[in-house]
């Protein structure tokens, strides 16, 4: 039963993802864009977990784990970036 719902859940989550992305395009502040990046990370992880079950491929869960690890690091990298730190002098 749940199996039949799964693909629709995936579609639903993806629609959410696309809707959330509109924020990245519109902004208006940097904070919004970084927030979208965060949303993108979380939602993609959700998407991958759903897909792992739907396709019956448990390996995909490792992809989700790796993705959330790297998303953490990349989001850290964002904050080291010029637009985001007034104290952006040479370290």
């Amino acid at each position: 039963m749940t199996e039949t719902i799964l693909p629709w859940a995936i579609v639903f989550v993806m629609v959410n993802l696309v809707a959330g992305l509109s924020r990245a395009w519109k902004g208006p502040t940097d904070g919004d864009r970084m927030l979208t990046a965060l949303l993108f990370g979380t939602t993609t992880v959700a998407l991958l977990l759903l897909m792992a079950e739907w396709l019956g491929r448990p390996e995909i869960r490792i992809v989700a784990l790796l993705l959330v690890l790297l998303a953490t690091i990349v989001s850290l990298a964002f904050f080291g970036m010029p637009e985001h730190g007034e104290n952006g002098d040479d370290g």
Partner: protein
Amino acid sequence: MADPAALVDPAGLVDPAGLVDLVALALLLAGCFFIFAGTVGMVRLPDVFCRLHAMTKADNLGLLLLSLSMALLAGTPRTALLLLLVWLLALLASTVSAHLIARHARTRLPPASGTRESEPES
């Protein structure tokens, strides 16, 4: 959809597998709802702090519910542990990110001059 009749076997006992499936379904739908709530907040709320508030909380709850649902469907403790780990990491990442974003947004409240990124939308 879940046919209630299918959950009850002829002996009149509740089928545990069917029950697990039903719980997973409920969790899945709830998870989707919270993700949807997060998105609505993201799109509709007026400023970045509100959006931050809505998004991080709702989405992480959604992810937790989805993970629980998937753990039930997969049915092995190992998978459940892995999913828990993924969720905890996501939670940690969004906690730190939310904090940094909030700090960042606050420093920019009086709009800094010459930041092209911060210009109002056209």
